[in-house]
């Protein structure tokens, strides 16, 4: 037994040496943390996962960052790692810095992290959970990608973040004494599953007050309930779900193409002005034609009577 311990000690020493010598190489970290089952058993019997998905990381916006950019080098270089190795920095350490290259002046590209922080602090999550809730409760920096055009896949991914807690009764029970039944809560919603598939939870459950950055999560009873808020020409979805898409598509394809190729359909909202114009011509033309014809008949009958 002591022999095995000695071998492990030697291996551990060799590992520590290599970490020190390899320094900041991400590949070296992935050798352990890329294993899906890499985890430790906590004293309370729960399992703490220490793995991250290297494929997702390499596809994320943070892929060019070195692990030690965010994870404390002081704690990482020793083995086993120090207590604070897992979280040396937070999002705002980089993203609110005025000098950060991501804080661009273009309002659609700017990261708005100050405003996001303000919104987040007003949110029901922060208000009820306070400091237990952080950026990382929802956003995994190892797989974070900037919002893209709203495809079914990206909508599903984003809703998956909410459902990670709100769709998992066992997990939610660990966070709150309330019991949650999403199906019952959304029973009023026509074609409930279709809404869930095509709209993000955020689109109904976050505030639309400026700056409208989808981080002020509202209490359930303040969520959008009026159909007409989305199902109208000036749909609120244009300010949230489709906020970037329209501008990006127009710049890429031109306004008409964007309108024609738009593959989303929202009753009452997805109107095409040319189609409505054609409708007005058809129906209006029929009414005018009928009125003119009727007048002509009346006039000729009157003349005949005279």
């Amino acid at each position, binding site marked *: 037994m002591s022999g095995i311990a000695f071998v492990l000690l030697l291996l551990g020493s060799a590992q520590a040496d290599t970490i020190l010598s390899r320094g900041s190489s991400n590949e070296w970290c992935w050798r352990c943390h890329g294993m899906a089952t890499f985890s430790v058993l906590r004293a309370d019997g729960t399992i703490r996962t220490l793995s991250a998905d290297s494929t997702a990381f390499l596809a994320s916006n943070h892929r060019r960052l070195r692990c030690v950019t965010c994870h404390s080098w002081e704690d990482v270089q020793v083995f086993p790692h120090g207590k604070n190795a897992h979280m040396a920095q937070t999002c705002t350490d980089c993203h609110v810095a005025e000098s950060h290259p991501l804080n661009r002046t273009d309002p659609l590209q700017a990261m708005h992290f100050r405003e996001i922080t303000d919104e987040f602090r007003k949110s029901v999550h922060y208000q009820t959970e306070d400091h237990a809730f952080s950026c990382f409760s929802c956003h995994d920096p190892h797989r974070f990608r900037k919002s893209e055009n709203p495809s079914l896949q990206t909508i599903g991914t984003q809703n998956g973040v909410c459902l990670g807690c709100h769709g998992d009764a066992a997990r939610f029970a660990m966070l709150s004494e309330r019991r949650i039944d999403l199906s019952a809560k959304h029973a009023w919603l026509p074609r409930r599953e279709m809404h869930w598939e095509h709209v993000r939870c955020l689109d109904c459950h976050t505030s639309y007050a400026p700056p409208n950055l989808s981080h002020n999560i509202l209490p359930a009873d303040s969520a959008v309930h009026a159909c007409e808020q989305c199902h*109208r020409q000036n749909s609120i979805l244009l300010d949230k779900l489709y906020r970037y898409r329209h501008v990006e598509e127009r710049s890429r394809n031109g306004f008409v193409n964007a309108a024609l190729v738009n593959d989303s359909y929202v009753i009452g909202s997805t109107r095409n002005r040319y189609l409505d114009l054609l409708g007005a011509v058809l129906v209006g033309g029929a009414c005018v034609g009928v009125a003119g014809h009727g007048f002509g008949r009346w006039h000729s009958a009157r003349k005949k009577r005279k």
Partner: protein
Amino acid sequence: MDTVHREYLHPLWVRVWHWLNAALFFALAVSGFSLHFSGSAVQLLPFRTAILVHNASGALFTIALILYVILLGITGEWRQYLGLRPRMLTLVGQNLRFYLIDVFKGAPHPESPTRTQKFNALQQVTYLFVLVIGMVPVAITGVMLSVPETAPKQILGAGGIWPVAVLHTLLAYGLVAFFVGHVYLTTMGPTLWSDIKSMFTGWHERVHGQADIQPQEQGDTP
């Protein structure tokens, strides 16, 4: 002395379908307008009510249309739509001339309805088009919008729902335009209300010597 000739044109099942269709068509037009223009200043029905009315009316409209087509086949009434007649194009031209010109001169209608040929040539072509490229496609696209799983996933590289919705809306506009004309043309029977009345009773009344001329009385040229 003028004699009144009565012709039984519309069997009961046709009349029932016709008036059911008319009621559903009206409900679909009002609710469809409310959905399409929801949030506008003019709101005929609240959105949730309009959804319910449109879905229920659309389902009934589709079922009634399927039954109508089946009954057309069983009873042989399909010939009213598809039965070929000699000089079809000439007759269509004569009817067009009547509606656009001759009616203002008080000229008689170029054709009179009979049990086996209740539509004039222009009506036959129009109703066939309305049925085949209007009502059937609007029902199919309506089903696709109600059950989006049945809609094509993609059309020409774009999402499938949007083109289906555009087609549904376009057909709806066309059918509303037809509805306006159809209702107006009911006033062009022997009397102002006689066509409406015949659609309730099934009997078409024609006064000999006043307006209608039998087809065999016509010449070859309009």
